[in-house]
């Protein structure tokens, strides 16, 4: 589902214009982004948790050239799905 589709569906459901939906969506994302930058985690009940994680430096080996490099530490965004979603996902049948 692309951005456009998402906006379209939301506009329909809320009875707002697509433009409004687009704006509000953008604002929402910027709020989430700035909070993540500030190392704050965002917990949406039933959906999931957005948080930042620090990853320490590590040595990695390039598979073909066999060159070893030292990868510096970095901060990453991590998402942990909420319980209801996890439950729903369990119900999805997988083809074995």
């Amino acid at each position, binding site marked *: 589902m*692309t*951005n456009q589709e*998402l906006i379209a569906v939301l506009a329909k459901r809320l009875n707002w214009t697509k433009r409004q939906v687009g704006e*509000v969506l953008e*604002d929402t994302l910027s709020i989430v982004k700035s909070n993540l930058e*500030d190392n*704050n985690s965002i917990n949406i009940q039933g959906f999931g948790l957005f948080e930042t994680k620090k990853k320490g430096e590590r040595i990695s080996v390039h598979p073909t050239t066999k060159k070893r*490099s030292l990868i510096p530490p970095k901060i990453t*965004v991590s998402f942990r799905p909420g319980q209801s979603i996890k439950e729903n996902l369990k119900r999805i049948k997988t083809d074995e």
Partner: protein
Amino acid sequence: MNERLTLQDLIDLLAEKQGRTKKDAESFLRELFAVITENIENNESVKIKDFGTFKLVKVNARKSVDVNTGESIEIPSHYKLSFIPDKSLKEAVNRPFAHFESVLLEDGVTFEKNVEEELESVDVEEYEIEIDEIESIENNEINPFLAESSPKNATEESDEEIDQTVKDDQLEQEDTNNFFSQSENEAIGNENNVSLNEEKESVPNTIDDNEEVPTKNYLTYSSVDDEEMDMDDGSYIYKEGFDKKWTIIVVILIAILSFVAGYFYSSSTISHSSDNESTLLEDDSAMLYQEEDTLSTPIEEQLMATAKDTLDKNIDQPANVKDVSDKPSTSDKVKKVKLKQGRTMRMMGLEYYGNKSFWVYIYEENKSKIPNPNSIPLGTELIIPPASKYGIDANDPKSVEKAISIEQGIFKKFK
């Protein structure tokens, strides 16, 4: 920082930002997540521009153990929801660490401890403090190791070469504390003694020096010829368990030695200001130099490599004086220097002007060639201006202060 925001907080923030009612904000957010959830459950990925992609990932069945009964059970294959952040989000979040880059490692560097950790929601400051702690511990770890290697060298080689190997180990030790590539050690260790003498004084110095050099090395790394590499048993291995007692002894000895060194430093500055005649200064500096030499040999025996740091600082001062009085001619010449690997402008400032801080004038002279003083490409030709051009005088504290203030200005611009 480290706050946990809830949906309510998000609603409030959104309502404020958009100027809408809280009700509107709430309904929007609920719908948003509902739509995402529905799509996910239909196994359709949701891509949000400048944010990221939510999609399902299949997880294969695996055998596991039931926590209560202890009998083996199978966790069936299922899907899990994964979120992959967009590039802009990744970069924004990683901003505190943005200036780090990967560094190629040469053979011979080993880290016994695998340094891969995930720290959850730790303050950046905390993390930096942790790095400092690890560094200081590793500093002391290396000491017992150096203790083992040096006596072996002493029996085999002459005094001069002891200097060289201790310097090598010393340099290596300093380097391992930062994100250095191994090649820098070897490159420095393999240059001839003459230049090494002066470099040695500047390298094991303040942290500022080390900050400048490591970032440069990230970008200017080029593979070093294998033949050039002369790996001592200075292939250092971090040992997980280090002797705490040893570190305490080392720390106490360092403290004592630094007091002694400080005493010499103060006495040199006193003689400095009292008499302006160069001959007298020369005498004093020669005396001090000698005294420092006698100190340095017992030190080598005691293998206090880190103590040498403070001593080297001391050697700086009389060396400055000596340089100026011995070679007045260098200040008049204009030189062109090609940047070799591992060279910093600070080292050059020390070499040509007698004080590390005068690198700022080298930078000024070559501003057109140097977009960022923290990282200069190898082989750049730098013009060393004559000292008189910028009023560089290592003996004049005002000149030094001026250079330092210029230095601060440059740091603010580029850090």
